[in-house]
């Protein structure tokens, strides 16, 4: 089959699918006249077809912004931000476009579903506290009412993470780095360690001061101010 016919066949299939998608609204129940039924069905087609176009446009926009973000990565950190601001785009909107683009890239077979997701759902689905397995589950099962459930879950995880005082992950990573580090890199690491020690000493002092203050809290002042 020629490329043209192939393209036309796809369009024919899409049109036939569209016919099947038309609502099974019970017109008889409401005594809708046959003229009005025709009118409603025509508008339903317009709605569904434009929905498809809307989904395609959203995909194109997200991917275009993603590609530019990748291209400008080579230049200064500010270049991408300057670029989208000149286009009149806000940081929040661009962030949403990029997150949606990530989902489009990771789940290419779920383009239409991803396009229907609200900005809020996109933020939740791409949140770093959501595991990749969960993300996959929600996308592949086309779960769209994830907002409240996951938002609460993320809040809980966040609250737990706020109770953690020190994050030792970097120290663990540094252990690995030392094994392969060059002499110059070792010097850098040692410099960092000195800084950390200094910070730790300062923290120690802060704690002692606080403890002293706490211990003297109940003392009676000798002189009135």
């Amino acid at each position, binding site marked *: 089959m020629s490329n043209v016919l192939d393209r036309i*066949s796809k369009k024919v299939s899409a049109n036939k699918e569209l016919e099947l998608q038309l609502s099974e609204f019970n017109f008889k129940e409401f005594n809708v006249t046959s003229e009005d039924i025709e009118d409603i069905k025509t508008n339903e087609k317009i709605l569904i077809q434009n929905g498809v176009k809307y989904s395609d446009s959203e995909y194109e926009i997200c991917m275009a912004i993603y590609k530019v973000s990748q291209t400008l990565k080579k230049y200064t950190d500010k270049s991408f931000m300057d670029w989208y601001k000149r286009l009149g785009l806000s940081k929040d909107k661009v962030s949403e476009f990029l997150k949606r683009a990530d989902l489009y890239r990771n789940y290419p077979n779920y383009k239409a579903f991803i396009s229907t997701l609200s900005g809020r759902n996109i933020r939740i689905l791409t949140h770093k506290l959501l595991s990749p397995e969960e993300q996959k589950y929600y996308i592949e099962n086309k779960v769209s009412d994830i907002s409240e459930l996951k938002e609460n879950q993320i809040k809980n995880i966040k609250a737990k993470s706020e109770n953690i005082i020190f994050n030792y992950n970097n120290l663990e990573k540094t252990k690995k780095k030392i094994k392969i580090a060059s002499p110059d890199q070792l010097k850098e690491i040692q410099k960092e360690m000195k800084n950390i020690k200094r910070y730790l000493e300062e923290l120690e002092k802060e704690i002692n001061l606080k403890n002293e203050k706490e211990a003297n809290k109940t003392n009676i002042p000798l002189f009135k101010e």
Partner: protein
Amino acid sequence: MSKILIKNNKGGVGKSWLTLQLSSGLAKAGCKVLVVTSDSQNDILGFLGIDTPTKGGLENWVNKGEGDLIRLRDNLFYIPLITNIFSKQFKEKLKERLNKFSEEYDYVLIDAVPVMGIDKEFEEVADKIIIPTFMDNVTCNGVEKMIDNIADISKIKAIVPNRFLGSKDEKIMLETLRNMLLTSNIFLSNPIKHKAIITGLNSKYKTIWESRAKGINDIQDTIGSVLEVILDE
């Protein structure tokens, strides 16, 4: 489903040929297609080398609810026309019959010959109108007048320049038409070039979709772009 009228008031601009290419393209793409004609010469049968005796075509279908139905290709059917004389009753029942056809077929394409006096009925019943034309002054002026006379201009979906030789005058005319249509929703296709390959296919009774020759690709592209307009709801 949809009824597509291929129309130009001037004869010989390639209405029947374009109707055949569009309908066979739709049929190949998986649609059930019916071609109805108001051309008693039944040129479409000639393009495919079909010489079937006909008893009663569109006239019988309109008056008796049955008649000749010629299979042209898979999914592609044709109702010929025998007579040129139509009664008032025929005209009244024509629209009803065409609407019935559209319930049975995905697409009904109407190859409309202007002299028949049933133009108005075809125009009224059509969902979309496609206009093939030459890029010369006389034909284009005719198209302009025709557009002015069509009651519902929104039905006109595409203009297809046909048998384009690429002369300077034709190019100027094409550019003028393109500028005229810029603000409209009417699609102006690329011109279909006048090529020996088409004559060759016609003499072999083949459609453009039945050729693998490289030279046919641009024509398939052009007809394909018109098919996309037809398929857009």
